[in-house]
């Protein structure tokens, strides 16, 4: 593994607090995931790809923004791997890069209606911007 890959991997493991080596590849996270069908890479792949250092494809993938952070995988994982936290760390690694904000304030008016709760807007900002 190249140094930059290794650094990225360490960074993600550190910020997520997840040890992907604990995974026994049962796939229960992906079995449980409500956003599975919309994802290019599924929760168990996140774990496996972070473990093997193959993180670039994840950084580029929309899958990062499909995770609903519903914590179902965290609760059901028999190995306490907590895949959602890993997805979150990879997402942060992506949007923390300069110019990688996925949404700007200008986009908002178009996306909302009269009933949109504030909660949705702030949540989306937390998720899509740094």
């Amino acid at each position, binding site marked *: 593994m190249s140094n930059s890959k290794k650094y990225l991997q360490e960074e993600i493991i550190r910020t997520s607090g997840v040890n992907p080596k604990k995974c026994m590849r049962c796939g229960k996270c992906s079995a449980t995931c409500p956003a599975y069908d919309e994802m290019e890479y599924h929760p168990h792949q996140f774990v496996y790809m972070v473990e093997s250092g193959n993180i670039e494809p994840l950084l580029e993938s929309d899958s990062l923004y499909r995770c609903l952070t519903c914590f179902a995988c965290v609760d059901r994982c028999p190995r306490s791997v907590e895949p959602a936290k890993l997805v979150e*760390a990879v997402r942060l690694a992506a949007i923390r890069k300069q110019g990688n904000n996925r949404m700007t304030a200008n986009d908002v008016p178009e996306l909302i209606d009269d009933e949109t709760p504030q909660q*949705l807007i702030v949540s989306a900002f937390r998720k899509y911007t740094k």
Partner: protein
Amino acid sequence: MKFSYFPGCTLKNKAKSLDIYARRSAEKLGVTLEEIENWQCCGGVFTTAKDEVATKLSSVRILKDAQKKQQALVTVCSACHNVVKQTNYAMQNDKEFAGKVNRYMSEDEYNGETQIYHYLELLRDVIGYDKIKESVVNPIGKKVAAYYGCLLLRPNAVMRMDDPENPTIIEDLIKALGGEAVIYGYRNECCGGYVRMESPELAGKKSQTVIESAKKAGAEVIVTACPLCKYNLEKSGCDIPVVYLTELLAEALGVKEDTNE
């Protein structure tokens, strides 16, 4: 009984009824909710990354304010509750994180001492469903589907509210209010949450699954504690009413129409 109370931004705006009925019902049940002064938005979602500090400070401030008043903190909105509770858990268990936060904060150290109740826990554990049952004046008399979503119950290691896979806390409340609780499979499945912003289709699909499941089980009304859940369900073509559980409660307790106003 007095508690510190954090309504959160949506409850001051689009979800006013969630807030107002919570307070009225609490008063009726002998509990005063004292709103924290000068609170800020919790941020809507909890960022699990250990190095995210600034985004969690507003939650810590809320918790510290409650601590200063020596009160337990009550929240109603599922999202606020989740964020504040997860932040508090991190303050208790992640020394490094707590250290960083405390360096930001000017005053005394905070290490997660504040006790947090979701409004439902306040009803179940502090007031008691028996007492609520006695106070009911308008029994609901409907088939009500409790919609938990994800934020109330998970992650269970932090939330510790109920069995995350087979919860009863809302169903028991519905029964106490004279309604019939409808059990259905997707009551703890995510509505699609914030993804509504970017992918209404995904959010729509998730919400429809929930709606269909509830309807199949015979629900006449769905209750939730989360403004975003309500919004998502309603935007996804839900043809049965989605109401806040505080509204249901206020109605049953006969305080929905405030005679003082």
